[in-house]
């Protein structure tokens, strides 16, 4: 299906919100793809980090928010350490998570995880996960 795009959709309130929370200008990205080349977990993502940037640039924000990229992201900063335009993609991912989480759409549901398993986990794993994946 063709996607209809418009500047109205691109320069939306959501984009504004996104740029305030992240402190990043989406349009700085010139799609070199270095972030995607660097990302160690990209194989599990349905959109590469650079594709996420691109989708936002053309207003396909819903597609991004419904995808899994930001939930797969491990905040490892491999992308940020290389981005030639100084974009902090890790923060972009966090912002996308925040947009979801602030609507109470948690990603991690503790109830679904086996209790023995939970007990085995180091606290840093559990706390960091809850911080990133729940509101």
């Amino acid at each position: 299906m063709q996607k209809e795009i418009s500047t109205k959709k691109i320069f939306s309130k959501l984009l504004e919100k996104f740029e305030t929370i992240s402190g990043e200008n989406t349009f700085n990205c010139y799609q070199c793809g270095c972030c995607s080349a660097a990302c160690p977990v990209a194989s599990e993502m349905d959109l590469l980090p650079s594709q996420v940037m691109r989708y936002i640039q053309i207003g396909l924000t819903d597609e991004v928010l419904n995808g899994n990229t930001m939930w797969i992201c491990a905040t490892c900063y491999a992308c940020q350490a290389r981005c030639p335009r100084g974009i902090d993609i890790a923060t972009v991912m966090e912002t996308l998570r925040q947009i979801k989480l602030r609507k109470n759409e948690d990603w991690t549901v503790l109830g679904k995880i086996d209790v023995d398993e939970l007990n085995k986990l180091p606290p840093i794993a559990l706390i960091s996960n809850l911080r990133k994946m729940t509101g």
Partner: protein
Amino acid sequence: MKKIAYYPGCTLKTTAANFEESAIESMKKFDIELEELDRWNCCGTVFSLATDDLMHHIAAIRNLIRVKEEKSNQVMTLCAMCYNTLKRSNQRVKSNQEDLDKINDFMYKEDLNYNADVDVLHLLPYLRDEITFSKIAKRVKKSLNDIKFSAFYGCTLLRPKEIQIDDPFMPTILENLITALGGETVETPYAIECCGAYQTVNQVDVVVERTKVIIDGARNQGAEAIVTSCPLCAFNLDHRQKETKKKYSKFIEMPVFYFTELLAYGLGIEFKKEWKDLHYVDPLSIFKN
């Protein structure tokens, strides 16, 4: 004995007590006492990235206030994630007076007004810069005897650049420590890449894939064991080998150490059974003497 205020963090008090013990014991050999803060709370483990989110920095700053209360201006960490979180939260309020004021306002019940003046240390660069590897080499009692290690740095000590402890693309600090302890090191491209981190909670598969790539990579270069500098990496690379083996039957397991364990071993401190029990893959199998 020189005393340094020390922030342990949750993990080194529980699932990774062996890392803490080995560090404290080792430091004693250099006449340094890591003096645990009287009171501390969880730092939050990850630095919150949203610009409009101050709440999540409070936990970190509160711990730095604890440091000030003990009349210290520096605090030692052993956990890479604690280091990253405390240091970056401190940097954020240091470079942003408004944030600092807001946080101080919020914590009006604290006796102290925080001034962003605590230096957050990590043991690894401390070993390199203050104690020095040459001094460590001189104190080695039990050499690692040419065992081949593959260093694994993970993310939080190297990135972002504001807090990096070494060259983020070609770090050598772990390798140099191993060499000082008499071990050998091999290079892998994965040393600075991510282990999958907190995905280990609900997306174990992401971590399994990472574990396989990282350990296979190390083995291909001839490594016999992995040395990590982050307790989460240590957990993932060690304990997730179980799931990895389940998924890939040909996968061969490999012991995973925390750098403090090897330090302690080298300095002649006994590798206790309790330490060993916290590992998944038997760590002692590789020691040749």
